């Protein structure tokens, strides 16, 4: 299974990718929407894990761009927003979303759920 992780916090996204790889996932990462779109153009991903709030383009807009380029990809949003209102608004756009910081087991659970839908 191939994952694409997108977040402007490089240390966060690179370490998360490394931890997922240790668990047997194939995980690419990007810190800008341009990099993310280039990777989607070049590779086929099963799941994209997107940060909601990024410079230049929001995670929701990035999801819309990716959907126009490829099919069959599932989305999980990651957000630093804590309020229920923000959380609900984001969840309407994706299979699921999780709030930072989170346990890696929670993300893996969400990945498995997303693949079953």
């Amino acid at each position, binding site marked *: 299974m191939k994952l694409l992780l997108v977040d*402007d*916090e490089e*240390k*966060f996204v690179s*370490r*998360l990718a*490394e*931890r997922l790889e*240790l668990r047997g996932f194939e995980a690419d990462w990007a810190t800008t929407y341009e990099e993310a779109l280039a990777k989607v153009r070049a590779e086929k991903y099963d799941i994209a894990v997107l940060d909601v*709030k*990024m*410079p*230049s383009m929001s995670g929701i807009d990035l999801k819309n761009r990716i959907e126009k380029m490829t099919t069959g990809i599932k989305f999980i949003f990651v957000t*630093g*927003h*804590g309020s229920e209102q923000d959380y609900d608004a984001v969840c309407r756009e994706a299979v699921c979303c999780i*709030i*930072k*910081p*989170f346990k*890696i087991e929670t993300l893996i659970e969400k990945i498995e759920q997303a693949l079953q839908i």
Partner: protein
Amino acid sequence: MEKICAEGLTFFGKTNRLISHELKNIFAIISETLGLLDELMELSGRGTALTPERLRSMSDSIIEEVERANTVIRCMNTFAHSVDEFISEVDLGEITFLMIQLLKLNPISKTVMIEYLKGEPCKIYTSPFFLGNLLYHTFHFALSAVAPEKYIKISIHVDSPRVEVDIFGIAPDSPKSFPTPPEELLVKTLGAEIWFDRSAGRVQVVLPQKMAGGPAAALLVK
């Protein structure tokens, strides 16, 4: 009067959201770093080498994030104190710097270079909270309408009995309008003026050195 109070509360809420978002990002980095460290240590117990360089890089990274969090909390504390005395003598340079620091928490600023040319100390008598609010709005506009060079320059000049905050680097062809009603309200409250020279890509905030009366003064409860 209600409008300016509502604007103040909105600004307070917005700032709180930015700060909590930043802190959550920092906690997420620390959490992932510690998680990875734990897993690498487990692997090293099973024979996979964990080099001192790798350990050092991860411990340095945790120290950096703790320092980053400390800077954010210091800003939050300074900002929270801006309502201690509703009208007081304030250092314009310090408030400008604080607002730039807060703005740097906004994703909009991550792709723009902000240069702040701090001049001589410049004390003015005004409402520190609404002054911060006006500067934040103005800097935010400049970032959202930045020229392709992605470079904003901010400086302060004294032209007694007024002081000016100059912001350069706005795209002359930006379709965004400025000032909008919230800035106009803040300008009126502070007895200030805003000049937007679109062709020069420049905004100038002109403040009285001593704010006399005005809507902000009327908010003081005696």
